[in-house]
């Protein structure tokens, strides 16, 4: 029999850190709530028969958010053999609220007071003995970040699971409340397992919706429980749920007063508060945010990243690898087509993607520094005020921030949004924010056509944010997305110095997936693309062609190219590139690498992007870049959209919306740009003006009357 041990606790209390050290896995940990949205399991190191289950962070066992439902269903229905309840020692009162609920589940449980290093640093003293006596279960100290006590606690949990000893907390309730719960226990005692009695009785008293709809209680039992609850509500003049909540907090406050000796008075200004007073300042907050994001993109694309990438592309591949591979292949009399496949197809395709990996690593490093440090949660708060005006809540921004690394986890993070319409809108707009894989496209355009200009990368980022805001305004006026944005309540974790290990894990995990993709998907598509561009129909048979303009790929690309012509990049190469971006966005660069032969060292040996640059003007390159940033995301992200929307129709609509939006924006940039450059009118100029007018109408039109009412009420 395998032993299942669940890790349960508040968001950001260190569950995932503990999970990583116990199982030796490398799950990403962020310093903000909601990093774990799904449960994850792993084997305890050195114990084949022990499964550790990481649950999403939750504040209570009420069934209102997705994470709470996931955690609660697991605990109540799957019943782990033991629970390790991780409690943030710097924040005992709030964390113990969940603890009092977990204790009622009748599952063997121990409490791990985490962040003990911080507690000690603050000078607080927690009386473990007293806590353990009152809560009726073992309590241990832990510093998950420093791996102090992790395995000791796991061993204790195994023993506890084997002993099957359930917690015996000091009674929570008293007086009429206790009597009522006892009465309910009496009426359900025949049809309920004994260890589930406390939990079930309290939930029936509270009128818990999920329990009421899923349980198999007879109607008489439910009615009787409701009568008891109503009587008590009248007697104590409050609703059942508030009564229980108040009882829990009274219990906790008393317990904490006895067991914790505080060095500082409550409500003292902390270091975090001082930082917050600056970065969430009424006036400075937004400029600071803009500067921070600018720096992130500027540093990763233009300075450090650019330097490393240039070295990789020009020296490593351009001067060392490609010539030496070619020479050695030629020395062995390898067929010319095979040399071309290897140097142009494989090294050109995979290499041009790998060349941008350093930039991605720098970007991921900077993003994880922001997350780890605690600034990301503040961004959500700062932007809530702005987003709310456009009908989105600041919570929508969390998926987008995660999405700046990769859209897939970003889209999944939309689950923390309670309201369905907000959730859908967030899913539809998350991939507008340039993800890590779009970084190579940005860097390529910036490098090849704008001479590595400093403003291209930040511009791409702000185009993404603007696209989100515009979409928010437009979609909110449709009935399907109308309504008040989700209420915003978010915990702001204290700032802390990021741990190098965690930063490394986060950066490596995200960055390495690109290296892996370069070796698999990109390698494969590069080879296929090389064949398609090397062979063509001539005189009714397939031949190796001298010019890839005569190739099969060119004929395929030319079919769809007219579609992109109004956007300024109707060449077959750009068309094929855009389509290959659906496999993975960095593939766009890989494809262009094969088609424009980036691996070829040109005369002088410094500029590889000449041919590519010649076929684009600054305007068409910008249009190409923006279309590829905004259009339908890669297949992996599409799959995630399908999963999270849980509807084929909505998925189709989302993808159509993104692509249409991208088309309209690019069309306007190219056509209006050309007009300004003095290239005169053509039929597409008028189409561009027409789409612009439609866009403006959708932006400024009044929402339907009933939606307006809802809005007004929310402002009242």
């Amino acid at each position, binding site marked *: 029999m395998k032993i299942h041990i669940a890790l349960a606790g508040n968001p950001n209390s260190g569950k995932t850190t503990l999970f990583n050290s116990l199982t030796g896995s490398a799950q990403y940990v962020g310093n903000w709530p909601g990093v774990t949205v799904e449960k994850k399991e792993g084997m305890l190191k050195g114990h084949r028969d022990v499964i550790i289950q990481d649950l999403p962070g*939750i*504040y*209570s066992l*009420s069934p*209102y*958010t997705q994470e709470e439902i996931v955690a609660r269903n697991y605990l109540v229905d799957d019943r782990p053999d033991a629970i390790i309840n991780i409690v943030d020692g*710097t*924040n*005992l*009162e*709030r964390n113990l*609220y*969940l603890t009092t609920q977990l204790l009622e589940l009748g599952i063997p449980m121990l409490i791990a007071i985490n962040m003990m290093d911080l507690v000690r640093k603050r000078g607080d003293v927690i009386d473990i003995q007293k806590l353990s006596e009152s809560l009726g279960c073992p309590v241990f100290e832990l510093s998950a970040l420093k791996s102090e006590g992790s395995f000791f606690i796991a061993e204790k949990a195994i023993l506890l699971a084997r002993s099957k000893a359930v917690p015996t907390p000091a009674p929570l309730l008293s007086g009429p409340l206790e009597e009522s719960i006892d009465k309910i226990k009496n009426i359900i005692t025949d049809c309920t397992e004994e260890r589930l009695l406390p939990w079930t009785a309290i939930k029936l008293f509270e009128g818990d919706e999920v329990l009421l709809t899923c349980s198999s209680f007879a109607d008489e039992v439910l009615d009787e429980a409701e009568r008891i609850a109503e009587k008590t509500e009248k007697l104590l003049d409050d609703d059942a*749920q*508030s009564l229980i*909540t*108040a009882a829990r*907090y009274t219990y906790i406050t008393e317990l904490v007063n006895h067991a914790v000796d505080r060095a500082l008075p*409550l*409500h003292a200004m902390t270091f*975090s*508060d001082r930082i*917050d*007073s600056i970065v*969430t*300042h*009424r006036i400075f*907050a937004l400029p600071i945010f803009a500067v921070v994001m600018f720096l992130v993109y500027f540093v990763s694309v233009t300075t450090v990243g650019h330097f490393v990438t240039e070295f990789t592309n020009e020296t490593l591949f351009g001067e060392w690898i490609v010539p030496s591979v070619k020479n050695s292949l030629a020395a062995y009399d390898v067929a010319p087509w095979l040399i071309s496949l290897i140097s142009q197809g494989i090294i050109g395709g995979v290499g041009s993607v790998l060349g941008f990996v350093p930039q991605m690593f720098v970007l991921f490093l900077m993003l994880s520094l922001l997350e780890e440090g605690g600034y990301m*949660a503040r961004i*959500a*708060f700062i932007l*809530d*005020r702005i987003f*709310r005006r456009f009908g989105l*809540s*600041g919570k929508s921004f969390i998926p987008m921030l995660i999405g700046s690394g990769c859209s897939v986890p970003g889209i999944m993070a939309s689950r923390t949004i*309670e309201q369905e319409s907000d959730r859908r809108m967030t899913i539809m707009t998350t991939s507008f924010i340039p993800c890590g894989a779009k970084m190579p496209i940005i860097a390529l355009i910036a490098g090849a056509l704008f001479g590595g200009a400093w403003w291209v990368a930040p511009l791409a980022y702000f185009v993404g944010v603007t696209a989100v805001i515009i979409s928010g305004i437009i979609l909110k006026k449709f009935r399907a997305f109308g309504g*008040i944005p989700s*209420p*915003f*309540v*978010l*915990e*702001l974790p*204290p700032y802390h110095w990021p741990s190098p290990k965690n930063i490394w894990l986060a950066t490596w995990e995200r960055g390495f997936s690109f290296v892996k993709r370069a070796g698999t998907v990109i390698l494969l598509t590069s080879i296929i693309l090389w064949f398609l561009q090397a062979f063509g129909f001539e005189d009714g048979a397939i031949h190796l062609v001298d010019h890839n303009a005569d190739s099969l790929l060119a004929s395929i690309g030319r079919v769809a190219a007219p579609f992109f012509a109004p956007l300024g990049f109707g060449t077959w190469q750009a068309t094929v590139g855009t389509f290959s971006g659906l496999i993975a966005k960095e593939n766009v660069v890989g494809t262009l690498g094969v088609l424009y032969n980036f691996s070829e060292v040109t005369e002088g040996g410094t500029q590889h992007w000449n041919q590519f640059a010649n076929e684009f003007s600054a305007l068409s390159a910008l249009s190409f870049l923006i279309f590829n940033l905004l259009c339908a995301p890669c297949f992996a992200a599409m799959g995630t959209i399908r999963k999270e929307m849980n509807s084929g129709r909505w998925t189709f609509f989302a993808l159509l919306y993104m692509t249409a939006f991208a088309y309209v924006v690019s069309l306007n940039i190219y056509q209006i740009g050309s007009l300004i450059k003095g290239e005169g009118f053509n039929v597409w100029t008028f189409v561009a003006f027409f789409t612009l007018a439609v866009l403006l109408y959708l932006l400024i039109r009044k929402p339907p009357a009933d939606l307006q009412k809802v809005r007004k009420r*929310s402002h009242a």
Partner: protein
Amino acid sequence: MPLIFAAIGQTVHISAIQGKKEMRERLTGFGFVPSASVKILSAHNGSLIVQLKDTRVAIDHAVASQIIVS
């Protein structure tokens, strides 16, 4: 009075939480319960950052107006 009227730096006590059951339940999980003390750390356009026990919580205008304090 609703929490939105409290001044920055002021410490107030919660007397009641209004609004839908779901929202109340969520606020409860964060520690917004009657008699709890709340300190206003900062405010912008009705959105607040408050200190509640040892936690800093950001809440928007709509939520803050449902929390009645004295």
